[in-house]
Protein backbone atom coordinates (compact mmCIF):
# COMPACT_ATOMS: atom_id res chain seq x y z
CA UNK A 1 0.00 0.00 0.00
CA UNK A 2 2.82 2.30 0.83
CA UNK A 3 4.45 1.77 -2.53
CA UNK A 4 1.15 2.35 -4.23
CA UNK A 5 0.62 5.72 -2.60
CA UNK A 6 4.20 6.68 -3.35
CA UNK A 7 3.74 5.79 -6.98
CA UNK A 8 0.47 7.68 -7.18
CA UNK A 9 1.94 10.83 -5.69
CA UNK A 10 5.01 10.65 -7.92
CA UNK A 11 2.70 9.96 -10.82
CA UNK A 12 0.64 13.02 -10.00
CA UNK A 13 3.79 15.08 -9.92
CA UNK A 14 5.00 13.99 -13.34
CA UNK A 15 1.41 14.15 -14.53
CA UNK A 16 1.27 17.78 -13.48
CA UNK A 17 4.30 18.50 -15.65
CA UNK A 18 2.58 16.88 -18.60
CA UNK A 19 -0.55 18.83 -17.70
CA UNK A 20 1.30 22.13 -17.74
CA UNK A 21 2.71 21.39 -21.19
CA UNK A 22 -0.64 20.11 -22.39
CA UNK A 23 -2.36 23.24 -21.17
CA UNK A 24 0.21 25.38 -22.93
CA UNK A 25 -0.42 23.44 -26.13
CA UNK A 26 -4.18 23.85 -25.77
CA UNK A 27 -3.82 27.56 -25.05
CA UNK A 28 -1.80 28.11 -28.19
CA UNK A 29 -4.17 25.97 -30.21
CA UNK A 30 -7.24 27.84 -29.04
CA UNK A 31 -5.67 31.17 -29.85
CA UNK A 32 -3.96 30.46 -33.13
CA UNK A 33 -5.29 27.11 -34.32
CA UNK A 34 -2.02 25.22 -34.48
CA UNK A 35 -0.08 22.74 -32.37
CA UNK A 36 3.23 24.01 -31.08
CA UNK A 37 5.61 21.06 -31.14
CA UNK A 38 8.29 23.29 -29.73
CA UNK A 39 6.45 23.89 -26.46
CA UNK A 40 8.68 21.44 -24.59
CA UNK A 41 11.84 22.69 -26.26
CA UNK A 42 11.04 26.27 -25.30
CA UNK A 43 10.48 25.13 -21.73
CA UNK A 44 13.91 23.53 -21.70
CA UNK A 45 15.48 26.76 -22.90
CA UNK A 46 13.72 28.53 -20.03
CA UNK A 47 15.22 26.08 -17.57
CA UNK A 48 18.68 26.70 -19.02
CA UNK A 49 18.18 30.44 -18.61
CA UNK A 50 17.29 29.95 -14.97
CA UNK A 51 20.39 27.77 -14.69
CA UNK A 52 22.55 30.60 -16.02
CA UNK A 53 21.29 32.99 -13.37
CA UNK A 54 21.78 30.40 -10.65
CA UNK A 55 25.37 29.96 -11.85
CA UNK A 56 25.77 33.72 -11.59
CA UNK A 57 24.96 33.44 -7.92
CA UNK A 58 21.34 34.53 -7.80
CA UNK A 59 19.00 32.77 -5.41
CA UNK A 60 17.03 30.05 -7.15
CA UNK A 61 13.64 31.66 -6.79
CA UNK A 62 14.87 34.89 -8.33
CA UNK A 63 16.50 33.04 -11.18
CA UNK A 64 13.25 31.23 -11.82
CA UNK A 65 11.24 34.45 -11.83
CA UNK A 66 13.62 36.08 -14.28
CA UNK A 67 13.47 33.01 -16.50
CA UNK A 68 9.69 33.08 -16.44
CA UNK A 69 9.54 36.74 -17.44
CA UNK A 70 12.05 36.18 -20.24
CA UNK A 71 10.07 33.16 -21.40
CA UNK A 72 6.94 35.26 -21.65
CA UNK A 73 8.78 37.71 -23.86
CA UNK A 74 10.29 34.92 -25.91
CA UNK A 75 6.89 33.32 -26.49
CA UNK A 76 5.41 36.66 -27.54
CA UNK A 77 8.26 37.36 -29.95
CA UNK A 78 8.05 33.87 -31.45
CA UNK A 79 4.39 34.43 -32.22
CA UNK A 80 5.02 37.84 -33.73
CA UNK A 81 8.01 37.07 -35.89
CA UNK A 82 7.99 33.36 -36.55
CA UNK A 83 4.47 32.05 -36.35
CA UNK A 84 2.35 35.04 -37.40
CA UNK A 85 2.95 34.48 -41.08
CA UNK A 86 1.64 30.92 -40.93
CA UNK A 87 -1.46 31.45 -38.82
CA UNK A 88 -3.85 32.08 -41.67
CA UNK A 89 -2.64 29.18 -43.76
CA UNK A 90 -2.57 25.43 -43.55
CA UNK A 91 -2.11 24.27 -39.94
CA UNK A 92 0.12 21.43 -41.13
CA UNK A 93 2.63 23.89 -42.53
CA UNK A 94 2.53 25.82 -39.28
CA UNK A 95 3.30 22.58 -37.43
CA UNK A 96 6.41 22.08 -39.54
CA UNK A 97 7.48 25.58 -38.58
CA UNK A 98 7.13 24.67 -34.92
CA UNK A 99 9.19 21.57 -35.56
CA UNK A 100 11.83 23.79 -37.10
CA UNK A 101 11.61 25.96 -34.01
CA UNK A 102 12.01 22.89 -31.79
CA UNK A 103 15.13 21.89 -33.67
CA UNK A 104 16.50 25.42 -33.51
CA UNK A 105 15.85 25.81 -29.80
CA UNK A 106 17.31 22.39 -29.01
CA UNK A 107 20.26 23.32 -31.17
CA UNK A 108 20.78 26.59 -29.34
CA UNK A 109 20.83 24.75 -26.04
CA UNK A 110 23.29 22.25 -27.47
CA UNK A 111 25.64 24.93 -28.75
CA UNK A 112 25.58 26.97 -25.57
CA UNK A 113 25.59 24.19 -22.99
CA UNK A 114 26.44 20.97 -24.78
CA UNK A 115 24.73 17.62 -24.45
CA UNK A 116 26.02 16.75 -21.01
CA UNK A 117 23.51 16.41 -18.21
CA UNK A 118 23.67 19.42 -15.92
CA UNK A 119 22.47 19.49 -12.35
CA UNK A 120 19.65 21.87 -11.57
CA UNK A 121 18.82 22.77 -7.98
CA UNK A 122 15.46 21.80 -6.58
CA UNK A 123 13.11 24.54 -5.45
CA UNK A 124 11.59 22.22 -2.92
CA UNK A 125 13.38 20.28 -0.15
CA UNK A 126 14.38 16.75 -1.00
CA UNK A 127 12.85 15.35 2.16
CA UNK A 128 9.99 12.96 2.61
CA UNK A 129 6.83 13.12 4.58
CA UNK A 130 4.58 10.36 5.84
CA UNK A 131 1.08 10.10 4.44
CA UNK A 132 -1.20 7.19 5.24
CA UNK A 133 1.75 5.03 6.12
CA UNK A 134 3.61 5.78 2.89
CA UNK A 135 6.83 7.68 2.51
CA UNK A 136 6.12 10.43 0.03
CA UNK A 137 8.54 12.84 -1.56
CA UNK A 138 7.93 16.44 -0.57
CA UNK A 139 9.20 17.57 -3.94
CA UNK A 140 6.59 15.52 -5.81
CA UNK A 141 3.83 16.79 -3.61
CA UNK A 142 4.93 20.39 -3.86
CA UNK A 143 5.37 20.19 -7.64
CA UNK A 144 1.88 18.85 -8.14
CA UNK A 145 0.37 21.43 -5.80
CA UNK A 146 2.28 24.32 -7.39
CA UNK A 147 1.16 23.46 -10.88
CA UNK A 148 -2.42 22.97 -9.80
CA UNK A 149 -2.37 26.39 -8.15
CA UNK A 150 -0.94 27.98 -11.28
CA UNK A 151 -3.56 26.35 -13.45
CA UNK A 152 -6.31 27.60 -11.17
CA UNK A 153 -4.85 31.10 -11.38
CA UNK A 154 -4.80 30.83 -15.16
CA UNK A 155 -8.42 29.69 -15.24
CA UNK A 156 -9.37 32.66 -13.09
CA UNK A 157 -7.48 34.92 -15.44
CA UNK A 158 -9.37 33.56 -18.39
CA UNK A 159 -12.80 33.53 -16.85
CA UNK A 160 -12.79 36.54 -14.55
CA UNK A 161 -10.60 39.23 -16.03
CA UNK A 162 -10.94 41.61 -18.92
CA UNK A 163 -7.69 40.31 -20.41
CA UNK A 164 -8.96 36.77 -20.18
CA UNK A 165 -12.20 37.78 -21.88
CA UNK A 166 -10.23 39.45 -24.62
CA UNK A 167 -8.02 36.37 -25.09
CA UNK A 168 -11.06 34.15 -25.36
CA UNK A 169 -12.75 36.52 -27.79
CA UNK A 170 -9.71 36.56 -30.05
CA UNK A 171 -9.46 32.79 -29.89
CA UNK A 172 -13.10 32.50 -30.85
CA UNK A 173 -13.28 34.91 -33.77
CA UNK A 174 -10.32 37.23 -34.31
CA UNK A 175 -11.84 39.26 -37.14
CA UNK A 176 -15.01 39.94 -35.22
CA UNK A 177 -13.11 40.70 -32.04
CA UNK A 178 -11.14 43.35 -33.93
CA UNK A 179 -14.40 45.09 -34.78
CA UNK A 180 -14.89 45.69 -31.08
CA UNK A 181 -11.49 47.28 -30.86
CA UNK A 182 -9.50 44.33 -29.54
CA UNK A 183 -5.84 44.50 -30.60
CA UNK A 184 -5.72 41.03 -32.04
CA UNK A 185 -2.00 40.84 -32.78
CA UNK A 186 -1.01 41.97 -29.31
CA UNK A 187 -3.42 39.55 -27.68
CA UNK A 188 -2.04 36.64 -29.65
CA UNK A 189 1.40 37.56 -28.43
CA UNK A 190 0.09 37.53 -24.87
CA UNK A 191 -1.45 34.11 -25.43
CA UNK A 192 1.83 32.67 -26.65
CA UNK A 193 3.65 34.41 -23.84
CA UNK A 194 1.39 32.80 -21.26
CA UNK A 195 1.85 29.40 -22.84
CA UNK A 196 5.63 29.84 -22.76
CA UNK A 197 5.37 30.83 -19.11
CA UNK A 198 3.49 27.64 -18.31
CA UNK A 199 6.17 25.67 -20.05
CA UNK A 200 8.91 27.51 -18.19
CA UNK A 201 7.36 26.68 -14.84
CA UNK A 202 7.10 23.03 -15.81
CA UNK A 203 10.68 23.07 -17.03
CA UNK A 204 12.25 24.48 -13.87
CA UNK A 205 10.21 22.23 -11.63
CA UNK A 206 11.13 19.03 -13.41
CA UNK A 207 14.74 19.85 -14.26
CA UNK A 208 16.19 18.78 -10.91
CA UNK A 209 14.75 15.30 -11.38
CA UNK A 210 15.49 14.79 -15.08
CA UNK A 211 18.76 16.77 -15.12
CA UNK A 212 19.20 19.52 -17.63
CA UNK A 213 19.90 18.45 -21.20
CA UNK A 214 18.65 19.79 -24.54
CA UNK A 215 16.29 16.90 -25.10
CA UNK A 216 15.00 16.89 -21.52
CA UNK A 217 11.33 17.39 -22.32
CA UNK A 218 11.08 15.45 -25.60
CA UNK A 219 9.40 12.53 -23.93
CA UNK A 220 7.26 14.78 -21.74
CA UNK A 221 6.04 16.50 -24.89
CA UNK A 222 4.89 13.18 -26.25
CA UNK A 223 2.98 12.51 -23.04
CA UNK A 224 1.51 15.99 -23.16
CA UNK A 225 0.32 15.43 -26.71
CA UNK A 226 -1.24 12.16 -25.64
CA UNK A 227 -3.02 14.04 -22.86
CA UNK A 228 -4.27 16.60 -25.36
CA UNK A 229 -5.58 13.89 -27.65
CA UNK A 230 -7.29 12.09 -24.79
CA UNK A 231 -8.62 15.19 -23.12
CA UNK A 232 -9.72 16.89 -26.29
CA UNK A 233 -8.35 20.11 -27.75
CA UNK A 234 -11.36 22.07 -26.57
CA UNK A 235 -11.24 21.05 -22.94
CA UNK A 236 -8.44 22.32 -20.68
CA UNK A 237 -9.86 20.39 -17.74
CA UNK A 238 -9.97 17.21 -19.78
CA UNK A 239 -6.32 17.59 -20.64
CA UNK A 240 -5.33 18.10 -17.04
CA UNK A 241 -7.28 15.06 -15.94
CA UNK A 242 -5.85 13.00 -18.79
CA UNK A 243 -2.31 14.15 -18.03
CA UNK A 244 -2.63 13.27 -14.37
CA UNK A 245 -4.08 9.91 -15.27
CA UNK A 246 -1.24 9.24 -17.68
CA UNK A 247 1.33 10.17 -15.07
CA UNK A 248 -0.16 7.91 -12.45
CA UNK A 249 -0.87 5.07 -14.85
CA UNK A 250 2.60 4.96 -16.33
CA UNK A 251 4.12 4.78 -12.89
CA UNK A 252 1.81 2.00 -11.76
CA UNK A 253 2.23 0.00 -14.94
CA UNK A 254 6.00 0.32 -14.82
CA UNK A 255 6.12 -1.27 -11.41
CA UNK A 256 3.18 -3.65 -11.38
CA UNK A 257 3.39 -4.91 -14.93
CA UNK A 258 7.01 -6.00 -15.32
CA UNK A 259 6.38 -7.12 -18.88
CA UNK A 260 6.10 -3.48 -19.79
CA UNK A 261 8.43 -2.12 -17.18
CA UNK A 262 10.05 1.30 -17.12
CA UNK A 263 11.36 1.32 -20.65
CA UNK A 264 8.11 0.57 -22.42
CA UNK A 265 5.78 2.52 -20.18
CA UNK A 266 5.70 5.26 -22.80
CA UNK A 267 3.59 2.93 -24.90
CA UNK A 268 0.82 2.94 -22.30
CA UNK A 269 -0.81 6.28 -23.09
CA UNK A 270 -0.81 5.48 -26.77
CA UNK A 271 -2.32 2.08 -26.34
CA UNK A 272 -4.95 3.88 -24.30
CA UNK A 273 -5.46 6.40 -27.05
CA UNK A 274 -5.93 3.79 -29.74
CA UNK A 275 -8.53 2.04 -27.67
CA UNK A 276 -10.50 5.06 -26.51
CA UNK A 277 -10.43 6.97 -29.73
CA UNK A 278 -11.78 4.20 -31.86
CA UNK A 279 -14.91 4.62 -29.82
CA UNK A 280 -14.91 8.36 -29.20
CA UNK A 281 -12.89 10.39 -31.71
CA UNK A 282 -13.26 13.71 -29.93
CA UNK A 283 -11.49 12.55 -26.80
CA UNK A 284 -12.95 11.90 -23.40
CA UNK A 285 -14.06 15.44 -22.73
CA UNK A 286 -13.90 17.34 -25.95
CA UNK A 287 -16.81 18.55 -27.94
CA UNK A 288 -17.24 17.55 -31.56
CA UNK A 289 -15.92 20.39 -33.67
CA UNK A 290 -18.12 21.34 -36.60
CA UNK A 291 -16.12 22.25 -39.65
CA UNK A 292 -17.81 24.83 -41.83
CA UNK A 293 -16.75 24.84 -45.43
Amino acid at each position, binding site marked *: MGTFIQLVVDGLATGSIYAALALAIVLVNQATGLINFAQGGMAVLSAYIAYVFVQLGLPLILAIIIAIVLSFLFGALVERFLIRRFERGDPDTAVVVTIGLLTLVTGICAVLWGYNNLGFPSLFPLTSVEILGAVVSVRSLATAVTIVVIMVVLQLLFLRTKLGLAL*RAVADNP*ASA*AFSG*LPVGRLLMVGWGLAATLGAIAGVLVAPQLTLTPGMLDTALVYALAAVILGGLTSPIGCVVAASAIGVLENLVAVYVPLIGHDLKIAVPFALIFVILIVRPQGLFGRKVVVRV
Partner: protein
Amino acid sequence: MTLLELTDVTASYGPVQVLDGVSLSVPDGGSVGILGANGAGKTTTLRAISGSVRTGGRIRFDGRDIRGLRPDQVAALGIAHVPEGRGTLGQLSVRENLMVGSYLRKDRKAIAGDIDYCLDLFPQLQDRVGSRAAALSGGEQQMLAVGRAFMAKPKLLLLDEASLGLAPSTAKTVYQAIRRLRLESGIAMLVVEQNANLAFSLVDTATVLETGRNVLTGTSAELKGMDEIRRAYLGG
Protein backbone atom coordinates in the same frame (compact mmCIF):
# COMPACT_ATOMS: atom_id res chain seq x y z
CA MET B 1 -21.49 68.25 -40.20
CA THR B 2 -20.33 65.32 -42.26
CA LEU B 3 -19.31 62.43 -40.08
CA LEU B 4 -18.17 60.00 -42.74
CA GLU B 5 -17.12 60.71 -46.29
CA LEU B 6 -16.09 58.27 -48.98
CA THR B 7 -14.59 59.66 -52.16
CA ASP B 8 -13.94 57.44 -55.16
CA VAL B 9 -13.13 54.43 -53.04
CA THR B 10 -11.77 51.37 -54.78
CA ALA B 11 -11.14 47.93 -53.33
CA SER B 12 -10.02 44.58 -54.58
CA TYR B 13 -9.60 41.03 -53.34
CA GLY B 14 -6.39 39.99 -54.97
CA PRO B 15 -6.83 40.48 -58.70
CA VAL B 16 -10.59 40.94 -58.50
CA GLN B 17 -11.68 44.57 -58.40
CA VAL B 18 -14.88 44.82 -56.37
CA LEU B 19 -15.22 48.55 -55.75
CA ASP B 20 -14.63 50.81 -58.69
CA GLY B 21 -15.17 54.31 -57.33
CA VAL B 22 -17.78 54.52 -54.57
CA SER B 23 -18.66 57.85 -53.02
CA LEU B 24 -21.06 58.61 -50.22
CA SER B 25 -21.37 60.64 -47.07
CA VAL B 26 -23.09 60.24 -43.72
CA PRO B 27 -24.00 63.36 -41.71
CA ASP B 28 -23.69 63.52 -37.94
CA GLY B 29 -26.53 61.47 -36.48
CA GLY B 30 -27.74 60.67 -39.97
CA SER B 31 -28.76 57.35 -41.44
CA VAL B 32 -27.75 56.30 -44.92
CA GLY B 33 -28.53 53.14 -46.78
CA ILE B 34 -26.52 51.18 -49.35
CA LEU B 35 -28.68 49.18 -51.69
CA GLY B 36 -27.92 46.93 -54.59
CA ALA B 37 -27.99 43.40 -55.85
CA ASN B 38 -25.72 40.58 -54.74
CA GLY B 39 -22.12 41.19 -55.62
CA ALA B 40 -22.59 44.92 -56.16
CA GLY B 41 -20.01 45.71 -53.52
CA LYS B 42 -22.21 46.74 -50.59
CA THR B 43 -20.48 44.59 -47.99
CA THR B 44 -17.09 45.46 -49.40
CA THR B 45 -17.86 49.14 -48.93
CA LEU B 46 -18.42 48.59 -45.22
CA ARG B 47 -15.29 46.46 -45.01
CA ALA B 48 -13.35 49.21 -46.71
CA ILE B 49 -14.44 51.62 -44.00
CA SER B 50 -13.60 49.30 -41.12
CA GLY B 51 -10.21 48.46 -42.58
CA SER B 52 -10.82 44.83 -43.42
CA VAL B 53 -9.80 45.12 -47.05
CA ARG B 54 -7.17 47.02 -49.01
CA THR B 55 -8.57 50.18 -50.51
CA GLY B 56 -7.77 53.13 -52.69
CA GLY B 57 -9.48 56.51 -52.77
CA ARG B 58 -10.30 58.61 -49.74
CA ILE B 59 -12.14 57.76 -46.56
CA ARG B 60 -12.54 60.50 -43.99
CA PHE B 61 -14.17 60.04 -40.60
CA ASP B 62 -14.70 62.84 -38.14
CA GLY B 63 -12.25 64.97 -40.06
CA ARG B 64 -9.41 62.46 -40.28
CA ASP B 65 -8.19 60.11 -42.97
CA ILE B 66 -8.83 56.54 -41.83
CA ARG B 67 -7.85 54.60 -44.92
CA GLY B 68 -5.27 51.94 -44.12
CA LEU B 69 -6.01 51.67 -40.41
CA ARG B 70 -6.46 48.26 -38.81
CA PRO B 71 -10.00 47.27 -37.83
CA ASP B 72 -9.29 47.64 -34.13
CA GLN B 73 -7.89 51.11 -34.74
CA VAL B 74 -10.99 52.08 -36.72
CA ALA B 75 -13.13 50.77 -33.88
CA ALA B 76 -11.21 52.90 -31.40
CA LEU B 77 -12.16 56.01 -33.39
CA GLY B 78 -15.84 55.33 -32.88
CA ILE B 79 -16.99 53.10 -35.73
CA ALA B 80 -18.75 49.86 -34.82
CA HIS B 81 -19.10 47.28 -37.56
CA VAL B 82 -21.78 44.61 -37.31
CA PRO B 83 -20.49 42.24 -39.98
CA GLU B 84 -22.39 40.10 -42.42
CA GLY B 85 -23.08 36.83 -40.65
CA ARG B 86 -23.10 38.68 -37.32
CA GLY B 87 -19.62 37.72 -36.12
CA THR B 88 -20.99 36.31 -32.90
CA LEU B 89 -18.37 35.16 -30.43
CA GLY B 90 -19.96 31.73 -30.23
CA GLN B 91 -18.07 30.23 -27.30
CA LEU B 92 -18.69 33.24 -25.08
CA SER B 93 -21.94 33.88 -23.25
CA VAL B 94 -24.41 36.55 -24.26
CA ARG B 95 -23.30 38.77 -21.41
CA GLU B 96 -19.66 38.22 -22.32
CA ASN B 97 -20.36 39.18 -25.93
CA LEU B 98 -21.79 42.45 -24.72
CA MET B 99 -18.84 42.94 -22.38
CA VAL B 100 -16.45 42.49 -25.28
CA GLY B 101 -18.31 45.26 -27.05
CA SER B 102 -17.36 47.63 -24.26
CA TYR B 103 -13.69 46.56 -24.33
CA LEU B 104 -12.32 50.01 -25.08
CA ARG B 105 -14.38 51.78 -22.45
CA LYS B 106 -13.34 52.42 -18.88
CA ASP B 107 -16.55 53.69 -17.28
CA ARG B 108 -17.67 50.54 -15.50
CA LYS B 109 -20.89 51.85 -14.03
CA ALA B 110 -22.10 53.18 -17.34
CA ILE B 111 -21.19 49.87 -18.97
CA ALA B 112 -23.45 47.98 -16.58
CA GLY B 113 -26.22 50.45 -17.32
CA ASP B 114 -25.73 50.01 -21.03
CA ILE B 115 -25.99 46.24 -20.74
CA ASP B 116 -29.35 46.71 -19.05
CA TYR B 117 -30.38 49.02 -21.87
CA CYS B 118 -29.40 46.41 -24.44
CA LEU B 119 -31.47 43.80 -22.71
CA ASP B 120 -34.37 46.21 -22.65
CA LEU B 121 -33.91 46.92 -26.34
CA PHE B 122 -33.80 43.21 -27.10
CA PRO B 123 -35.98 41.49 -24.53
CA GLN B 124 -35.48 38.12 -26.21
CA LEU B 125 -31.94 38.13 -24.88
CA GLN B 126 -32.95 38.56 -21.26
CA ASP B 127 -33.48 34.88 -20.56
CA ARG B 128 -30.34 33.92 -22.46
CA VAL B 129 -27.85 36.16 -20.75
CA GLY B 130 -25.78 33.25 -19.48
CA SER B 131 -26.09 30.98 -22.51
CA ARG B 132 -23.35 30.34 -25.00
CA ALA B 133 -23.95 32.67 -27.92
CA ALA B 134 -23.62 29.89 -30.50
CA ALA B 135 -26.77 28.31 -29.08
CA LEU B 136 -28.90 31.34 -29.95
CA SER B 137 -31.22 31.51 -32.93
CA GLY B 138 -30.32 33.61 -35.94
CA GLY B 139 -32.50 36.48 -34.91
CA GLU B 140 -31.20 36.47 -31.35
CA GLN B 141 -27.63 36.42 -32.62
CA GLN B 142 -28.36 39.39 -34.84
CA MET B 143 -29.76 41.29 -31.88
CA LEU B 144 -26.73 40.32 -29.83
CA ALA B 145 -24.42 41.55 -32.57
CA VAL B 146 -26.15 44.91 -32.72
CA GLY B 147 -26.10 45.08 -28.94
CA ARG B 148 -22.38 44.36 -28.88
CA ALA B 149 -21.75 47.10 -31.39
CA PHE B 150 -23.85 49.53 -29.36
CA MET B 151 -21.87 48.71 -26.20
CA ALA B 152 -18.91 50.51 -27.71
CA LYS B 153 -21.00 53.74 -27.74
CA PRO B 154 -19.89 54.39 -31.29
CA LYS B 155 -20.49 57.52 -33.30
CA LEU B 156 -21.23 55.45 -36.39
CA LEU B 157 -22.77 52.02 -36.72
CA LEU B 158 -22.05 49.95 -39.82
CA LEU B 159 -24.86 47.45 -40.29
CA ASP B 160 -24.29 44.70 -42.82
CA GLU B 161 -27.28 42.74 -44.09
CA ALA B 162 -29.02 42.54 -40.74
CA SER B 163 -31.97 40.71 -42.24
CA LEU B 164 -29.87 37.94 -43.81
CA GLY B 165 -31.22 34.50 -43.02
CA LEU B 166 -33.97 35.78 -40.80
CA ALA B 167 -37.68 35.14 -41.11
CA PRO B 168 -39.52 38.29 -42.27
CA SER B 169 -41.21 38.86 -38.92
CA THR B 170 -37.94 38.43 -37.04
CA ALA B 171 -36.19 40.81 -39.40
CA LYS B 172 -38.92 43.34 -38.83
CA THR B 173 -38.55 43.03 -35.06
CA VAL B 174 -34.80 43.53 -35.33
CA TYR B 175 -35.21 46.61 -37.47
CA GLN B 176 -37.82 48.06 -35.12
CA ALA B 177 -35.37 47.70 -32.26
CA ILE B 178 -32.60 49.30 -34.30
CA ARG B 179 -34.91 52.18 -35.17
CA ARG B 180 -35.66 52.69 -31.52
CA LEU B 181 -31.92 52.61 -30.81
CA ARG B 182 -31.36 55.27 -33.41
CA LEU B 183 -34.07 57.52 -32.05
CA GLU B 184 -32.93 57.18 -28.45
CA SER B 185 -29.18 57.38 -28.93
CA GLY B 186 -28.69 59.49 -32.04
CA ILE B 187 -26.00 57.16 -33.39
CA ALA B 188 -25.30 57.66 -37.08
CA MET B 189 -25.82 54.58 -39.22
CA LEU B 190 -24.69 53.22 -42.54
CA VAL B 191 -26.95 50.36 -43.44
CA VAL B 192 -26.34 47.73 -46.10
CA GLU B 193 -29.51 45.91 -46.88
CA GLN B 194 -30.87 43.92 -49.78
CA ASN B 195 -34.42 44.27 -48.52
CA ALA B 196 -35.13 47.83 -49.59
CA ASN B 197 -38.36 48.05 -47.60
CA LEU B 198 -36.55 47.35 -44.36
CA ALA B 199 -33.79 49.73 -45.35
CA PHE B 200 -36.16 52.58 -46.07
CA SER B 201 -37.72 52.12 -42.62
CA LEU B 202 -34.39 53.05 -41.09
CA VAL B 203 -32.55 55.44 -43.42
CA ASP B 204 -33.07 59.02 -44.58
CA THR B 205 -31.05 58.74 -47.76
CA ALA B 206 -29.60 55.91 -49.74
CA THR B 207 -27.27 55.11 -52.57
CA VAL B 208 -27.59 52.22 -54.98
CA LEU B 209 -24.51 50.29 -56.03
CA GLU B 210 -24.01 48.32 -59.17
CA THR B 211 -20.76 46.48 -59.99
CA GLY B 212 -18.81 48.56 -57.52
CA ARG B 213 -20.10 52.00 -58.44
CA ASN B 214 -22.86 54.37 -57.36
CA VAL B 215 -25.61 54.50 -59.91
CA LEU B 216 -28.31 56.31 -57.97
CA THR B 217 -28.43 58.46 -54.85
CA GLY B 218 -31.31 60.23 -53.17
CA THR B 219 -33.60 60.52 -50.19
CA SER B 220 -35.70 57.56 -49.22
CA ALA B 221 -38.83 59.31 -50.43
CA GLU B 222 -37.30 60.04 -53.84
CA LEU B 223 -35.95 56.53 -54.30
CA LYS B 224 -39.11 54.82 -53.18
CA GLY B 225 -40.95 56.70 -55.85
CA MET B 226 -38.65 55.66 -58.69
CA ASP B 227 -39.80 52.94 -61.02
CA GLU B 228 -36.38 51.30 -61.31
CA ILE B 229 -36.11 50.90 -57.59
CA ARG B 230 -39.62 49.62 -57.28
CA ARG B 231 -39.07 47.06 -59.96
CA ALA B 232 -35.61 45.97 -58.93
CA TYR B 233 -35.78 46.02 -55.15
CA LEU B 234 -39.31 46.48 -53.98
CA GLY B 235 -40.89 43.74 -56.05
CA GLY B 236 -42.70 45.94 -58.55
